[in-house]
């Protein structure tokens, strides 16, 4: 039986796009130099931000943890070279809005001293949970662009049996060759990583999905599999149609089943992982190296020397562009990700993060121009192009009308934001932007409603409690009055009024004393310079 197969089924829609991969294809992966300053964001993954475990002035080595994972969907972050921490502050991160997020800034010393975890070459004898913990400790996240923590993706309840592990090497986005170059140069690492993930999931077979135009990588991979003598790995060649590398479309092509609306591939017993993630898993488990670098494609006609670089996480993007010879002419547009799903970076001072797979600097006329959006003419091209089977124009109308119910009825949340609809739109309407905005609106609306429901419940509970309290007070008073009438010959002959006045006087004195103490404390705080905040050893 041949280990190379064709797909069972194609997905609907999709586009045959010009690939532009020749700019970097076949070029060796170069090691990017250590920048003088590394800016490492604490949140580089989908979940909660990592919690800082270091302080300013501390010396760290490469691979040393600087932030620990805070919950299931969080991931640890590590120093990517040795040096001293000069600041823990908000810096611009690669985000469409250029927003600032907490980052650890390291001034590197150039020595690149490292500190790893013990290597585990014999992973077969280890428990799955031990291996998952190692991946969590090493901060391994999906390197295909979504940055979903790998340990979380490899955790499944025993009720859902996983039968297929798909390794995604399709790289359908134009321009990107980072996964392809990794397949050419490090197929062994990828296969080892695949074996580890197969062991964790206890999956009998693994499938490597590869694009049909990646012949060199295919040959290298096949050779490696032969040398590896693994009986459990198949290669499936998928058509070079965008978005063939998208998780749900890939699962559909390989299993012949569509992922249900709102579901996950695991509902079909499938888990997908990216090839670069497999290599990172290999490094984390067998070498004991946390995820501190990744391969980034720097390409486009707007950059002097396109390259595939192994880049340390936290390297400023400007530094990498300079390393590649800088921009051609007066071009300043930098897109993170590919031309379809990427976004223009508002600031090149932002660092490379775990999700950065590509930095694209297009030449003057390289990308199809986006003129002003014209009115929708209901041509229906977007419906034919949508790989999910949605109705993009209906979604567009409802999103424009801010009709949050209607967009959800039209399955807005099944949109994978691939951009096919916007690409074919003759009116050049930026459709995906409308969908992203609508998704955000829905999320905000849901959150507000949840908060309001919580507040209403707490308010009603309080009213009930106050009502009950009033009832008990009343019954207590009645009892007291009754007992007072029963025993007239008591020693205490204060009247109720006198008792109340005495009580109030004591209480008022106590409050006045407390107020005086606070006043004194306030004075002390104001006059002392210790509260200044910047007098520590923050230099």
């Amino acid at each position: 039986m041949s280990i190379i197969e064709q797909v069972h089924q194609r997905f609907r829609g999709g586009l045959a796009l010009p690939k532009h991969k020749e700019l970097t294809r076949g070029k060796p992966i170069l090691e990017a130099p250590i920048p003088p300053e590394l800016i490492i964001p604490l949140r580089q993954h989908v979940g909660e931000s990592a919690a800082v475990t270091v302080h300013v002035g501390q010396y760290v080595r490469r691979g040393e943890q600087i932030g620990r994972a805070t919950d299931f969907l969080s991931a640890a972050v590590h120093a990517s070279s040795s040096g001293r921490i000069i600041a823990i502050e908000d810096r611009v991160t690669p985000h469409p809005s250029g927003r600032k997020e907490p980052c650890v800034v390291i001034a590197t010393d150039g020595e690149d001293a490292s500190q790893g975890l013990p290597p585990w070459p014999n992973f077969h004898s280890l428990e799955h949970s031990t291996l998952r913990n190692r991946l969590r400790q090493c901060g391994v996240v999906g390197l295909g662009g979504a940055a979903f923590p790998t340990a979380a993706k490899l955790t499944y309840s025993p009720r859902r049996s996983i039968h297929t592990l798909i390794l995604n090497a399709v790289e359908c986005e134009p321009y990107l060759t980072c996964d392809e170059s990794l397949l050419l140069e490090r197929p062994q690492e990828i296969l080892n990583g695949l074996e580890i993930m197969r062991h964790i999931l206890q999956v009998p077979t693994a499938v490597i999905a590869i694009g049909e135009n990646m012949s060199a990588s295919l040959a290298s991979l096949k050779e490696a599999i032969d040398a590896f003598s693994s009986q459990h790995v198949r290669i499936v060649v998928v058509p070079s149609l965008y978005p063939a590398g998208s998780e749900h479309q890939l699962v559909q092509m390989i299993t012949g089943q569509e992922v249900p609306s709102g579901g996950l591939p695991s509902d079909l017993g499938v888990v997908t992982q990216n090839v670069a993630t497999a290599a990172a898993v290999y490094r984390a488990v067998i070498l004991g190296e946390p995820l501190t670098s990744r391969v980034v494609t720097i390409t486009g006609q707007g950059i002097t020397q396109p390259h595939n670089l192994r880049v340390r996480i936290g390297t400023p993007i400007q530094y990498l562009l300079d390393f590649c010879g800088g921009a051609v002419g007066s071009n300043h547009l930098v897109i993170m990700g590919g031309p379809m799903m990427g976004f223009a970076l508002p600031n090149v001072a932002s660092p490379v993060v775990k999700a950065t797979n590509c930095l694209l600097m297009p030449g003057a006329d390289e990308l199809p121009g986006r003129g002003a959006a014209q009115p929708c003419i209901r041509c229906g091209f977007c419906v034919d192009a949508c790989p999910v089977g949605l109705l993009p124009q209906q979604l567009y109308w409802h999103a424009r009308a801010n009709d949050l119910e209607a967009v959800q009825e039209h399955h807005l949340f099944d949109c994978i934001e691939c951009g096919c609809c916007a690409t074919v739109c003759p009116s050049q309407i930026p459709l995906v932007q409308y969908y992203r905005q609508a998704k955000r609106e829905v999320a905000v609306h849901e959150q507000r409603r949840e908060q309001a429901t919580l507040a209403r419940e707490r308010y009603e509970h309080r009213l009930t409690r106050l009502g009950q309290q009033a009832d008990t007070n009343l019954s207590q008073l009645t009892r007291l009055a009754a007992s007072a009438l029963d025993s007239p010959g008591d020693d205490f002959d204060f009247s109720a009024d006198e008792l109340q006045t005495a009580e109030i006087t004591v209480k008022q004195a106590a409050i006045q004393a407390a107020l005086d103490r606070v006043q004194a404390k306030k004075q002390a705080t104001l006059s002392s310079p210790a509260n200044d905040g910047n007098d520590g050893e923050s230099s």
Partner: protein
Amino acid sequence: MSILIAILLLALLAAAAAGGLAMATSSQSRDKAILTQQVDAVLPQTQCTRCGFSGCLPYAKAIVEGLADINRCPPGGEATIAELALLLGKPVKPLALDCLPMAPGVAGIIEELCIGCARCIKVCPVDAIIGAPRQMHTVIKSACTGCELCLPVCPTDCIVMYTAPLLTTLQPGQSASTISAGLSP
């Protein structure tokens, strides 16, 4: 004969109309309860009392009874007024001038200054402040609606409103939990 039929028909019609009216009056109170619920669902549940009523539900009741206008909810703002107008078939109006505006936020207690008087606990409409007499109090930030009712009753002015993250830059030696304890805007 035809006159008799006409009288009979008219009498039947009148009886039917009377029955309908009687049913309408009895269901009116039920309709009002449902409408009150719908209005209450639109209100932001801040319970800030800036509308002049003791909470969101009393305000909703007043709107349904025709005792209050729909433009008296500062935290809900234009969006809430528009939703209420749509629900009740009334024209959209600007916010009433006598309802003081309010910035979204969450209350926090400056711990050094709190004397444990428990006054803020008594006024909090959603029981979002915990503490006991002569013990330091604290705010459950996930439950706080930012109504600011606790501010005026505090004798030491130790309650402040936060709109932005508490702390974004760590000082040397500070624990890492400070960042994660920061409030999201």
